[in-house]
């Protein structure tokens, strides 16, 4: 008897608590920036594609759902000719983001990706590439790499000496 009354009392008290239910989709929940949702490809501060088509994300992906092909522009800058993620396979583990040496691929707090047709879960580069820098700003891989691709000449990158003059005779 006592325990029944006690339960009723406790239940009654909940009327005065803050509600836990979120009225999704009318109300959107707060998701932290590092939430692992939909994947994007970002651009650097100069609005150039960040991805250098190194294939590391594809290799890291445990379900092998990233596929791409590298190509180069006239200046030798490498970028993906196509970049495809099959989200019907993706497990949102974030390994790709972790593997990426250029901050190109990022997982963002968006999970609203449901589709009636599974085929629509296949995202190509045009669906993935955004025009901003995403979560990580400021980094431009090509300024640090040793290659010369139009972004900088040889020896003009961060922490680089002028190219060696091989005809110089000084000891």
């Amino acid at each position, binding site marked *: 008897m006592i325990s029944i009354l006690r339960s009723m009392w406790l239940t009654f008290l909940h009327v005065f608590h803050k509600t836990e239910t979120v009225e999704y989709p009318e109300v959107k929940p707060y998701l932290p920036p590092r939430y692992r949702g939909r994947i994007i490809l970002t651009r650097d501060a100069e609005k150039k594609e960040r991805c250098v088509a190194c294939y590391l994300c*594809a290799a890291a992906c445990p379900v092998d*759902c990233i*596929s791409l092909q590298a190509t180069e522009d006239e200046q030798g800058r490498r970028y993906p000719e196509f970049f495809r993620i099959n989200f019907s396979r993706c497990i949102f583990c974030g390994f790709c983001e972790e593997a990426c040496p250029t901050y190109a691929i990022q997982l963002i707090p968006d999970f609203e990706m449901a589709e009636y047709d599974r085929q629509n879960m*296949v995202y190509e580069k045009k669906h993935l590439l955004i025009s901003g820098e995403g979560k990580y700003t400021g980094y431009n891989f090509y300024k640090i790499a*040793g290659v010369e691709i139009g972004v900088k000449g*040889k020896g003009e990158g961060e*922490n680089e000496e002028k190219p060696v003059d091989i005809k110089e005779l000084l*000891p």
Partner: protein
Amino acid sequence: MSLEVRMVKITIDGKYYEVKPEKNLLESCLSIGIDIPHFCFHPALGSVGACRLCAVKKFRDIDDTKGRIVMSCMEPVTEGLIVSVDDPEAKAFRASVIESLMTNHPHDCPVCDEGGECHLQDMTVMTGHNYRRFDFPKRTYNNQELGPFISHEMNRCIQCYRCVRFYRDYAGGKDLNVYASRNHVYFGRHEDGPLENEYSGNLVEVCPTGVFTDKTLKRHFTRKWDLSNAPSVCVHCSVGCNTIASERYDSLRRIMSRYNGAVNRYFICDRGRFGYEFVNDEKRIETAQISPGKNKKPEPIENEQLLSSLHQLFSRNKKIIGIGSPRASLESNFALMSLVGKESFYHGISKKEYLLTKTVSDFLQNSGVHTPSLKQIEKADAILVLGEDLINTAPMIALALRQAARNEPDKEAKGKGIPLWNDASVRELAQDSRCPIFIATPFNDSLDEISKNIFHASSAEIANLGYAIALELDKKVPGVKTWGKDIQKLAGIIALSLKNAKNPLIISGVSSGVEGIIHSALNISMALLSVGSNVMLSLVLPECNSMGLSFLPGKSFEEAVLAAEDKEIDTLVVLENDLYRRASEESVNELFDRSNHVVVLDHLINKTTQKADILLPAATFAESEGTIVNNEGRAQRFYKAIYSKNQVKESWRWIENFLKISDENNSVSWNRLDDVVDSLVNELPLFSKLKKYMPDADFRMLNSKIPRQTMRYSGRTAMNANITVSEPKLSQDLDSPLSFSMEGQQENPPSSLVPFYWTPGWNSVQAMYNYLDEPDASMKGGDPGVRLIEPSGGSKNIYFNQAKGITEVQKDEWLIVPVYKIFGSDELSSVSSSILQRIQEPFVLMNQKDADMITLNDGDYVQLEILKISLRVKVKIENSFVTGLTGLSVNLPGMPFIDIPGFGKFHKL
């Protein structure tokens, strides 16, 4: 030949091992399976101790606890040697070497083509260095443009000197060197320009970093872990180097060398490495086509319709003729022979080539003279090259000769107690001393620099020299002295040298097109054999399966034309052969005109395929399994790297369709390659070894097939998702024990089925060591391939009569000999876009005096009249030609078939 080698006992980290004495410590450790990081040591290039990475600790005796650090690559193994690889000080030393190399290494891995198969990455992980403590700026270099094959990114260099040691010391290149000094050393050319050496592509594999990378791969770049690979065999010359062919997204991405201890070992030539692009070419025939009427443009056709059209062509009682090809596999040629019958099977090569090849093949089968593998060529100690321009017709034999040249100095070094792996010292000691190599060719080539005597003369004179040497060796050789004193004297020198050698080697080939040269070479080897010499005879043939084809019964192309003249042909089947490269335009046209229906199977559109009524897409080496026989008589199998999804099929599969139609009792049912091989063996017992030594399609390791893909293969669930999101069923390979998958037994497959090299910790090509008995030796379980001909005991004393001298040269006429080019003279590789950039326009070579006579200068154009053909060619001055003799490039794109040697005239333009 298993000589018991005295082993020495050494102690490594407290454990006892028995190792071979003439090795260095690093090599010994690698062969036992102890990983010591290293850069500059390469089994083919020896040690120089430049990189300091292979440090280990050596102890004086058991009581020595301190020890001292030594470089394992410079340390001979001696009885009782005590070393430690795991010693903390040695480990710290190695990590610090990497750290200091890394102070200047660029932050490039993601955009570096070496990444994923980088020896530097492997070594960095192996030594444990992981964080850059050095804050100062990095050194940078400007790069060079090195031509269509190789990219250059000097920032990545770690100064191991492997590149120049390979390019200059091993391959005899001149235009790559090291410049500047101290921490500024630079590896490159004196100026921008294509790397000239014929083996430059090997820099890709030799350089442990991404300084030299494959430029053709860059156009469709794929990481090593994403490639689907197959063991393959090079189809661009008769040497048959082993290769790895790699696919991604249904296109062939690159060719790398595959180790075969008896053939090419670590290296291949540039024709073999970069010639692959023809497989992806837009001229590829990918659908079956049928032409609506004579000389009308063919239209694509579906399979059912095709079958009914074929029915008309191959029903019984038709006169069907089959023309095979020296560039098609044994199985495809055999299938065609079964279809048309032995009497109606033609080899599809010119009569001249047919006769010469037949002579060679019969001689090797019956004479008892041994034909050496490339490895044995490297061991020869006196060599005679008769009339063959090896660099251009069999490039890897030329490279083997360069190594053979070192046998003499090697002996000297041994005498002085210098181990042979101590490369710098051995070369220093050798200076210019070389084992005797004699070269007799019409003109100069880059091998001349390693030869003791050079003899540049006309083919007739070269043949005479050959006869003179044979006569000098054995008085029983038939021959009349028609040669001068010079030749007699030279013949004496050469004969003596060959007679005194332990392993004399005669090299010749059919490229000269002169019977006398072949005959005299055979006479010399026969004569040497009869005096009990351990003679070896290597004969270069024109194409990758010339030898295999010669083992099948059949006749020359000219006889096919005769047969057609006799009686009209109902159906003519041409197998992977552009006949316009084999005979004069008229005779090929005549054959086509006298055939009611022409069925052509080939890879690429060419003049012959344009004559086809039915054109069928034939699989290349990259899309099929097949066997080819190299000039040594070694049968080797290539496996498909690409699973072709369209109508492209193996030629023998197409022909099996025809057979099913023509043969109503259905006596033939070939479901897979092994069935064809079975039929072949039944028909011709010579091939029975194929069954014994080549794993058939049912071969399994631990109940599974051998995977073509690495364990890191990526994109499996996404690469076809744009077409359909459900993953397709894996492609099945009926013909081989390899699978198009990453599942299965990866470790140590049989040597002929190694699709790629990988072992834990070793992602670069150096992973290869783990597939070998020891560096530089045979592969585990024996080298791939099987020799179909072995010397059959007693010699039969076959001597050839001396050929008659060539008729006198007419006034105003020149004797024209063929000049082959590594880039251009081979049909398929010439289509490759990178090689295309290195192909010259058709040219004639003549000496300055001759040119002066008709007032020509280098670079002028002349109209050449030869055998009713008129051709515009460029003049090049080559002073090694004797007067009256000129050379004409062979088979370069745009040139018709010309039957040379022959006589021609020039008109200045």
